[in-house]
């Protein structure tokens, strides 16, 4: 006969497991897999804040009306450790164990697309930011996944447009360095060479490196010897920090230095101190933007966390609001109805107007940001600028 204590224990564990895996009948469960650790954790922490804030606001307002009854929203976040395999596994878990009705995306094409493909297969709506649109569209024709972010050609040309428009003079020799990730190959391998030629630059170097590379001395040495005065880099934050440090230690300071992706989070400037000054990065959001709640969002983040805000709080907050509005408009937790409601999104959010096109994408306008004294300022376009261009790089 089975020992009664063991039986009770087994029953308790079973009950606890059941409780963990079952949503309450009176709550709407949504979920997200985010890079809360690993190289992209700098993005994940901001996204987590944005997602949670949107959900908290809805819950404070009484929840969402489903079938005529107000229900609270429960957000489940799982850490994907910056590993696309973990993103896919987390998304499976969110669907099969957590019984989410819809999901929010991770960050960067490698992670977002890995989870999005699972959502697509399971026919669960997923709204994401942090996935450049060309990389998103290149995967497949999406039916269940929606992306609110910038378009790579816009981002790839913004800094050269800014430099030309602001009259910053260089010798027109440009070096392009990019990682071999999906967006690195699109931006650095395909778009930048064409854009550079359009603006009259001579491309003296186009170097590709693995996403986890740590040594850049040869690449830097070559650009220095070829006298490139403009350098465009596409790399994640650890590599961006390494590159900037190694450039300085090699005695190479181009007049214009643009680092996409990696120079976005504030940890870039924190790790580099004064070396971050003058680095340009394409941006899709700033608290100064004339959209409802933009300034308040940054203030709320900074007062809650005592950290400097990042544009990633805005696209994540907006993506969550779009999803929650979609559920509210559907008035149902039925995935098909939510998806149909998402398709009709047409509203101005904290990132600007959001209306999805036939590719399930909503494009955000891009500005040129520059790190100055540990903070980013908008230096272009002139209509949106909050500071003057620091030129050349100090």
């Amino acid at each position, binding site marked *: 006969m089975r020992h009664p204590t063991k039986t009770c224990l087994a029953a308790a564990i079973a009950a606890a497991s059941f409780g963990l895996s079952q949503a309450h009948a009176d709550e709407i469960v949504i979920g997200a897999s985010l890079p809360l*650790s690993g190289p992209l*954790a700098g993005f994940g922490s901001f996204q987590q804040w944005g997602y949670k804030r949107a959900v908290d606001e809805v819950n404070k307002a009484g929840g969402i009306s489903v079938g005529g009854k107000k229900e609270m929203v429960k957000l489940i976040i799982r850490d994907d450790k910056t590993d696309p395999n973990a993103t896919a596994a987390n998304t499976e878990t969110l669907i099969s164990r957590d019984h989410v009705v819809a999901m929010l995306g991770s960050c960067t094409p490698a992670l977002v697309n890995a989870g999005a493909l699972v959502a697509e297969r399971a026919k669960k709506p997923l709204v994401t930011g942090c996935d450049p649109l060309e990389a998103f569209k290149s995967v497949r024709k999406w039916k269940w996944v929606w992306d609110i972010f910038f378009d790579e050609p816009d981002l790839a040309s913004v800094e050269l447009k800014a430099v030309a428009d602001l009259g910053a003079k260089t010798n027109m020799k440009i070096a392009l360095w990019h990682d071999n990730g999906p967006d690195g190959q699109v931006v650095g391998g395909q778009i930048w060479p064409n854009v550079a030629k359009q603006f009259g630059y001579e491309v003296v170097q186009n170097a*590709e490196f693995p996403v986890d590379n740590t*040594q850049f001395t*040869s690449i830097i040495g070559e650009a220095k010897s070829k006298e490139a005065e403009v350098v465009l880099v596409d790399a994640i934050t650890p590599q961006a920090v390494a590159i900037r440090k190694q450039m300085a*230690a090699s005695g190479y300071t181009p007049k214009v230095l643009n680092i996409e992706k990696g120079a976005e989070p504030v940890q870039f400037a924190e790790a*580099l101190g004064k070396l971050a000054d003058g680095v340009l990065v394409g941006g899709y959001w700033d608290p100064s933007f004339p959209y409802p709640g933009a300034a308040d969002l940054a203030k709320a983040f900074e007062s809650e966390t005592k950290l400097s805000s990042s544009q990633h709080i805005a696209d994540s907050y907006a993506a969550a609001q779009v999803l929650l509005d979609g559920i509210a408009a559907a008035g149902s937790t039925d995935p098909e109805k939510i998806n149909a409601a998402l398709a009709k999104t047409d509203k101005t959010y904290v990132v600007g107007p959001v209306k999805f096109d036939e590719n399930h994408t909503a494009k955000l306008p891009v500005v040129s940001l520059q790190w100055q004294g540990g903070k980013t300022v908008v230096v272009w376009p002139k209509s949106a600028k909050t500071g003057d261009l620091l030129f050349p790089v100090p």
Partner: protein
Amino acid sequence: MPDIGVALSTIASGVLLGGILALTALGLSIVLGVMRLVNLAHGEFLVLGAYAGLFFLQFTGVDPLLGLPVIALLLAAFAIPLYRWLLQPLADRGPEAQMMTMFAVSIILQNLFVLAFSADTRSIARDYAALPLTLGPITVPLIYLIGFAISVIAILIVNWVVSSTAFGRDLRASAADAEAAATMGVDVKSVRMLTFALGVACAGMGGALIGAAFQFGPSSGGAYLLNSLAVVVLGGLGNVLGTLAGGLVLGALQSLGGLTLGDGYRDLVGMALFLAVLAFRPDGFLARGRP
């Protein structure tokens, strides 16, 4: 064909960087040579040293490179209870038990780093870490030269301890034949504990150097563990001066790989060399015997 100045600068940087790699690998080599333990948490001890350097600077205002002895002592103090409570009880259970324990420690440390320090990329920001040193056509990062000098001094001190002190004699005896050493009155348990502490202390110093020269985060340890393994295999297990030579060779060859194939192929060159040495000279290209 790369510019001659670029080529010379890259190779010189590689050799200097190799010196730093040697210090990062020294702890792994000593522990492997004496305890036959592949310390899979070695990379996390490096990262711990980098965090120790960062916070040492923040709290004391003293340059972490000046504080290296303090960082080494802190890491050694951290290592002793770890050995006493986790590794010593497993000493008679074969090498796998201790190795898997250290694998678990590496995962736990990574997660503790995230919890305690966040997953942010960090760097020890010092002005000298961003200064170039130019000699004719050759330009190298000043921090590489400083790191190289510190590494060589630290390695020579450790070599002196291993080859010329009573502890070193016990260490070498325990490495050669632990049973015979115990029969001759050597306290093998204590020797192993102190060896582990010495290994972790060396990792801590290497980590602080890495933190000043490069960037680091909670999950940076894995890449440094791989490089350290290559250096150890090149130099020979437990061979202190061999580790320095292994680091220099790895640094030089990685830089040649970067120069000819591109910076993305540095690790490929290093790992190919690692496999070649394992296949043809498994005791290392310098090793004639263990300490």
